[in-house]
């Protein structure tokens, strides 16, 4: 991968630090960050465990120790191809078998709980991570809807199509009960000239603004196109919305009655009811659907029109990059990914081909995101680094769970995992539960009063990860790091981390911190961070008056070290 790791540590040196049985002592990087590195040949080969940690941080919910071992020495492209060939782990089968109350409903929050367990344990990590990324672009939130199965069905649409084609994804999303409830086009009726009633414009507006083309015309590299006056060019007018709103009329639950929902209506594709669909001409984005065109045909033409807009590739590509690797991607990187989206093909540095050549192919697109050559190039030897991604709090939590191989993964027993939305005592974020269709944060967010903001860099994650949420995050993570998160049944030790490897290093705080640095940040902690944590771990008192006290204090020391790394700036960022 890289001849020199980011802090100048010779790559081979870092090789044996993460796994147990590697002889825990020493090996810390003593070379000053910024020392000139040897420029190596850039490939996507993963040479070291720290490189493996970094790649798994980009591409999964966080590297487990066994995955780190498995991927080290492979080419990332080969590993990715193997991930793409794994079958999809769906959520609805588990959810559907849950106990029901007397109204045949599944207990509230069950889908939230199961989703944590799912993303932490599922074997098809890349697919699941892509589905999670898509859930932040084609946003459905259950904040206003307690229907557990409806959300599960929607989750599975994203999981099944995560490595498929974006056009098909748009189709399934449009016909999903969850989206129709959320963006209010369920039972949306054609206009009525007698009462003056007009179709609901909600989905017409948001599918354009958020799910496909965005507000202003883009170049392939994601920068705005400008007109002769140097102004940005808006992609649609209000008249386009009025025209497109006519398309999304007439949809309701499957069955034979527009007004009735069958019991399993929440897990079936919506149905078109022709008598409620607008027969008028529909004009939008330069397309005219003739009067009298059927509802399903109108939707097909509309989605084709939207999907074929040149904005879709850069608009979606830039956001995908932000979800995986870079909060503020360069135009060149966006263009590489958008080109893969446009052509449906991507060729890795080792020659491996991705995609089937169809526009909108998500395997080609995601491969371009994760195998972008610039990610594997040596970082600049000196100066401030402005690339990289601030990791959303959800990913920081799942990474802890996977890195320490938590056992008895049953979020149903974890009181803190029911609802993690609060920034006072939670993560300030919960999957599929954003406050609005605008997600937890905006792709264009620039944080006021920050160095990155002053440099005009977009960092969406700073919208929820900031001074106001720092203490809530710290306390949430501390509870889990110390294995003291509140349980429903206290005798049931769920989400229990395995710190055996770490306890074996407790006598050598420097080795312990080096190990945690490698395992959790890919060896990117600054010397100052590590020195402080080493000092703190050395200060925690280890009583020697009884073996029990000694063991308890040693555990405290390890847990303190873990909690501090989880709250270090290096853990929050991957670069």
């Amino acid at each position: 991968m890289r001849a020199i790791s980011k802090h100048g540590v010779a790559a081979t040196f870092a090789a044996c630090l993460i796994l147990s049985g590697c002889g825990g002592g020493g090996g810390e990087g003593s070379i000053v960050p910024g020392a000139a590195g040897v420029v190596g040949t850039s490939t996507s080969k993963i040479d070291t465990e720290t490189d493996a940690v970094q790649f798994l941080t980009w591409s999964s919910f966080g590297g487990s120790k066994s995955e780190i071992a498995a991927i080290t020495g492979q080419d990332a492209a080969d590993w990715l191809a193997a991930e793409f060939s794994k079958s999809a782990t769906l959520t609805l089968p588990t959810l559907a078998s849950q106990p029901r109350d007397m109204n045949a409903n599944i207990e509230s929050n069950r889908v939230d709980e199961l989703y944590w367990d799912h993303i932490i344990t599922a074997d098809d990590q890349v697919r699941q991570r892509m589905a999670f990324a898509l859930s932040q672009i084609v946003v459905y939130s259950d904040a206003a809807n307690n229907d557990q199965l409806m959300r599960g069905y929607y989750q599975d649409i994203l999981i099944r199509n995560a490595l498929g084609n974006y056009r098909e994804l748009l189709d399934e999303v449009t016909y999903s009960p969850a989206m129709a409830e959320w963006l209010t086009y369920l039972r949306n009726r054609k206009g009525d000239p007698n009462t003056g009633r007009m179709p609901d414009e909600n989905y017409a507006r948001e599918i354009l603004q958020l799910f496909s083309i965005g507000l202003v015309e883009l170049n392939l590299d994601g920068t705005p196109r400008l007109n002769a006056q140097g102004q940005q060019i808006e992609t649609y007018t209000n008249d386009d919305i009025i025209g497109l709103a006519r398309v999304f009329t007439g949809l309701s639950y499957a069955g034979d009655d527009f007004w009735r929902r069958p019991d399993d209506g929440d897990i079936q594709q919506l149905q078109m009811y022709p008598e409620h669909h607008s027969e008028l001409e529909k004009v939008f984005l330069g397309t005219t659907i003739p009067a009298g065109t059927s509802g399903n045909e109108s939707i097909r033409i509309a989605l084709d029109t939207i999907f074929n807009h040149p904005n879709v590739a850069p608009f979606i590509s830039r956001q995908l990059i932000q979800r995986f690797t870079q909060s503020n991607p360069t135009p060149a990187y966006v263009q590489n990914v958008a080109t893969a989206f446009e052509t449906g093909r991507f060729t890795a540095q080792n020659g491996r081909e991705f995609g089937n050549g169809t526009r909108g192919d998500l395997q080609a697109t995601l491969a371009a995101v994760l195998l972008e050559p610039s990610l594997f190039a040596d970082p600049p030897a000196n100066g401030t680094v402005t690339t990289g991604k601030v990791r959303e709090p959800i990913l920081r939590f799942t990474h802890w769970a996977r890195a320490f191989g938590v056992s008895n993964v049953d979020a149903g027993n974890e009181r803190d995992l029911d609802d993690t939305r609060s920034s006072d005592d939670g993560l300030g974020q919960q999957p599929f539960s954003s406050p609005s269709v605008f997600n937890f944060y905006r792709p264009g967010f620039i944080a006021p009063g920050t160095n990155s903001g002053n440099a005009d860099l977009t960092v969406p994650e700073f919208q929820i990860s900031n001074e106001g949420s720092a203490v809530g995050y710290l306390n949430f993570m501390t509870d889990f790091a110390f294995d003291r998160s509140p349980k429903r049944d206290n005798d049931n030790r769920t989400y229990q981390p395995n710190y055996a490897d770490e306890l074996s290093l407790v006598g050598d705080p420097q080795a312990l911190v080096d190990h945690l640095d490698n395992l959790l940040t890919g060896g990117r902690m600054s010397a100052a961070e590590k020195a402080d944590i080493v000092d703190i771990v050395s200060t925690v008192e280890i009583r020697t008056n009884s073996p029990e006290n000694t063991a308890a204090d040693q555990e405290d020391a390890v847990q303190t070290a873990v909690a501090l790394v989880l709250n270090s700036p290096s853990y929050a960022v991957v670069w």
Partner: protein
Amino acid sequence: MANLSRRHVLKGLGTAGFASSLGTMTSLGLNNAWAADTGGYKAMVCIFLKGGMDGADTILPYDQASYNQLASVRSGLFGTYDSTSATSTRNRANLLQMNLDNAGDFGGRQFAMPQELSPLHTMFESGDLAVVGNVGPLIEPTTRAQMDNGSAILPKRLFSHNDQQSTWMSFGVEGVNRGWGGRFMDRVVASAPNQNQVFSAIATSSNDVFLAGETVNQFKVGSEINEPNLFANRGLLGYTNGDDAARDKIRAFLAKNDFNSRSIFEQDITSSTAKAVANTEQFATAQENATPFATAFGNDSVSRQLQNVAETIKIRQFLNVSRQMFYISTGGYDTHDNQANTIGGLHNALAAGISSFRDAMMEIGEWNNVVVFTASDFGRTTIDNGNGTDHGWGGHHFVAGGAVQGKRLYGEVPLADVNSASYTQSRGRLIPTTSVEQYAATMGNWFGLDTGELNTSLPNLNNFNTRDLGFMGVPTT
């Protein structure tokens, strides 16, 4: 745990530490042209109603002819309210008529609020609340004719939620990073050397642009003091001297401003965590002086946030502030669907929250020194979609406070004649007749900002003849 641990945390900080942390003021207002009046204490409280509140379902026409006109334009929506039934909240007989002191400004027209806003109606009648009609973002006064012939200079990305939220808060689309609440406080901080910048701008929920200034950033308050357990909870590591020493070092680690990180993002995270730890401690110290209100607040989101605001105002002297800008937000106003069953609950919470806040401020004698005002993405279409309404532009807003010249309707509340020049070509979207900047300037004038400071904070204000709408009872500067 809380008290014990807090003292542990704060040991060595004391008042001296508190005062010294105020030493990092920005350049003081040496330029005499800019000198906000920062005497006494004043606070502004913005309630942002996310989604776009439907003005036409908030301030309703009450005279029979105007009411009938709206009911006809909105026959679908009024149908879902079952408005002809005796018990319907939208039956004219059940609306709460507003007895305007300036009724003469509106000819024979009359106005009313729905029952769900009853506490606000009471405040209106007692003179504690005013309504400003048809407010929205404008670059300059704008007419339908100018829009139709393409000569109007319009705010960008009208009808888009995030961009219009941003425009209301900052006069630019998403991505602008200074809001007018923050800009107002920048001016205050520049003029008041003793003002503690950290607690100048306070948010209770989301991190939005409204409070972002050049020197001022928002501090977030919640319902409880949130201390970092990693060092504040002694039970975590234990009670030995070594554990105490470790805790001190943990605190120092989390409060550290610089780790020589090369990543600009890591630098920002270092800084935000450090500020969170230090500012939370400062706030917690001040909060040790807090005493509870006799006034009870409700449990809805608006009431809880306004309670946090009230509690913060109550300890203002320990926060070293003479001016404060607060920002709370609440969602659910994007009523495309099922409006008849949702907006009532939203109105209930809004009215109960503001009413309790008034009571709490009366309790501590500060009601004359605060102004509470609403803001929202946009108004909504006057023509409905059957059971809801879609994105519009101008909307009606509330301002409340002891200093507010209440029981009056400012600006305009146009008739529901959706083909008239009051509306855009389609769907009955109101063209604003009062700009957000005029609305803001009226409060800014009362807040103590002078003409130059208002012009700096409100870039298009000079395009409008009326700089002060009069609802704060302050003579125009």
